């Protein structure tokens, strides 16, 4: 699945998007756990997990929402536009 990162999460991961094998992760939270185990960059990007926002196929979702069948998961900090 395609995973997107924005703002300081993008900077910490070092990529705006990447193709990720979810390795059987059923929720966004499980996906985050697998990523953090994989590389220090992810551990740094997700260190403030309480403030991380998730969108599954461009719909806002909860960290514990299912990601089964999703094509795109986006992770980002709270928005600061306007």
């Amino acid at each position, binding site marked *: 699945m395609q995973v997107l990162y924005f703002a*300081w999460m993008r900077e910490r991961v070092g990529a705006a998007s990447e193709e990720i094998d979810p390795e059987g992760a059923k929720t966004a939270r499980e996906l985050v756990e697998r990523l953090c185990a994989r590389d220090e960059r992810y551990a740094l990007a997700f260190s403030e997990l309480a403030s991380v926002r998730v969108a599954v196929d*461009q719909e806002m979702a909860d960290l514990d929402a299912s990601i089964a069948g999703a094509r795109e998961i986006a992770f980002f900090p709270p928005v600061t*536009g306007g």
Partner: protein
Amino acid sequence: MADAGGIPTHVSVQPDDFDIGEEIERLARGNRDIGAVVSFTGLVREMTTDGEISAMELEHWPGMTEKALSDIAREATARWPLDGVRIIHRHGKLEPGDKIVLVLTASRHRAAAFEAAEFLMDYLKTRAPFWKKEHSARGGRWVDARECDDAAADRWSGQD
């Protein structure tokens, strides 16, 4: 130009500056039942809580941002008797004094135009996928979301 229940709504996400007067004229043109147009213009401030900045970078989510702005505009037209909505949000690198965002609402009545413009700004601040990074002599710093913006957006959720 999208159409929300027959009401002209138009959203743009662009790096370029915009002309407020021209946008207002365009929104009001051709509809002589509009009695009130409210505009909100957001500008880059030089002084922030962390000192003076030299530039601001606005990141957004291409492909998603325009959809979010259209949703917000549609929600406003469903809540208030509006005759037009216009949203322009810039992205890219901006300098102090530069315009960031423009929200226009047109209505027969001033109360509807004012309320809808406030609603749109509150929702833009909390729901549109933009992230600001401030640049100063000390380097770059991502702007934190403000809890008072969430509180401002929340005040609309009890209504209607």
